[in-house]
């Protein structure tokens, strides 16, 4: 449903996208995972027909983003990272406005948005600017869907949103997927990756890994350990000075570290630090560890 082939885009000397390839099937929930400045928004702007790529081909539903931009816009819903509805209009007025822009009536496509919009309908006379973060998000999603969207592009929809609203939002995406929509969603939160069918990891304008969340962590090719210590800083410094250690970093209450190659005396290496520790064991990596391997050394 979404295809990108060798898409490049530069702004002056900055290579925002360096030959990006991406393929999203119909009905797929695809996560674009990467930090600020990695190229996520540029990629969205090309897909939403707002930027022209320098080279490469991008299509949505088989239609070229450059040649068929008008047709693409009819089936595409876009929720930009920054709240972009009219703050001075009410909830209801915003929805009517976006329906009118696409030449549709709210009631024609109401069924699609009902599960989402009904949650904010009690506040329909309230100005959008006065809504809470979670409610703004629901309104923006409703407006992005009202023209009977087939492909939904969501640029960091959960940034700055609290834990409960975040979870509710992902539940809504599951619902939309069950109706047959295709969704490309970007996020800086690694934990959200697990809720996608497939994910692409992007860093410095380069998608360096694509696959199911399960598959990606299986490709982690180093041995990863975790330990606990009350002297985290000292332990990190010690680990970084050891030749056997490839990378060491804090992870919540624990420290994670990976080795260049398997060691059978790992316990002895840690003991000789003289720093008290507990719970030393090998762990299976998560998406976040995979990212650290890529970013940690650069």
């Amino acid at each position: 449903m979404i295809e990108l082939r060798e898409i490049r885009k530069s702004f002056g000397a900055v290579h925002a996208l360096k030959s990006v390839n991406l393929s999203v099937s119909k009905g797929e929930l695809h996560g674009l995972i990467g930090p600020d400045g990695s190229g996520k928004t540029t990629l969205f702007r090309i897909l939403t027909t707002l930027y022209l790529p320098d080279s490469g081909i991008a299509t949505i539903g088989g239609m070229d983003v450059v040649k068929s931009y008008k047709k693409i816009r009819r089936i595409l819903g876009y929720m930009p990272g920054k709240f972009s509805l009219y703050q001075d209009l009410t909830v209801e007025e915003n929805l009517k406005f976006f329906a009118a822009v696409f030449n549709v009536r709210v009631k024609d496509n109401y069924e699609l948005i009902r599960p989402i919009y009904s949650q904010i309908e009690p506040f329909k006379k309230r100005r959008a600017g006065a809504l809470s973060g979670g409610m703004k998000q629901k309104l923006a999603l409703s407006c992005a869907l009202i023209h009977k969207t087939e492909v939904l592009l969501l640029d960091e929809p959960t940034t700055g949103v609290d834990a409960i609203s975040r979870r509710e939002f992902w539940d809504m995406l599951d619902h939309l997927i069950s109706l047959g929509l295709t969704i490309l969603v970007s996020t800086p939160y690694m934990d959200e990756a697990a809720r996608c069918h497939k994910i692409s990891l992007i860093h410095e304008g380069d998608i360096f890994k694509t696959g199911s969340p399960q598959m990606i962590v299986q490709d982690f090719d180093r041995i990863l350990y975790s330990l606990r210590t009350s002297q985290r800083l000292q332990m990190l410094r010690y680990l970084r000075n050891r030749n056997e250690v490839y990378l060491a970093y804090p992870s919540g209450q624990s420290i994670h570290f990976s080795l260049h190659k398997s060691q059978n005396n790992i316990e002895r290496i840690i003991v000789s630090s003289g720093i008290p520790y507990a719970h030393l064991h090998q762990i299976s990596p998560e998406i976040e560890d995979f990212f650290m391997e890529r970013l940690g050394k650069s």
Partner: protein
Amino acid sequence: MKDKPIITVKNLTKKFGHFIANDALTFDVYPGEIFGFLGANGAGKTTAMRILCGLSKPSSGDAYVAGYSVKKAPEKIKKRIGYMSQKFSLYEDLTVEENIRFYGGIYGLKRKDLLNRMEELLDRLDIKSIRHQIIRSVPTGWRQKLAFSIAILHKPVIVFLDEPTGGVDPAARRQFWELIYEAADNGITVFVTTHYMDEAEYCDRVCIMTEGRIVALDTPDNLKMMHQCNTIENVFIKLARNHE
């Protein structure tokens, strides 16, 4: 934690008209501790933090920060704390160096001390090469580390971090937390509010607020054990839903 608390909060209540933003908060924070203050938007985190920083007065109850009452001596408190927020921290139109000099001046550092500490800071963060670059062109991760280092430039006893991270990559976030560990290791107490639950896992103790009240306060491990959850996020969701 046998030391005397560096922050003592007793029955702290803040009302705005009929709305109770903070409802009889009581807790202690100990020197060198990384104390996480969690809650959804509107739970009352910022209100409480503003009071602890001496920027707002409680409606009733009191709090002692670095030995001073927020009611009686807020100006004394302001001199002994550092503050950083994600929303506003550095001047985008000023260079790295200008920001350091500006804040150092505001915090009342003497010229010589300021220049020494600036060099030390630039060295420690390894950003000497960008000292004359304007902040707008500095990547978010570096900005956050710089903002934090500036907030502790005057060696405060406590630093308050209001939603300090967000939007940076996992490597930058970890580097940021290492700076926090370093500060705590040097005896600075770190009081951090966040609604990113995964960040709570890095704190020594976390306090969870919903609708103006403290609903949990313990180490991340104990909270997870008590509520039989594998992450603080799940603990939080459980507590917030119970409260509804």
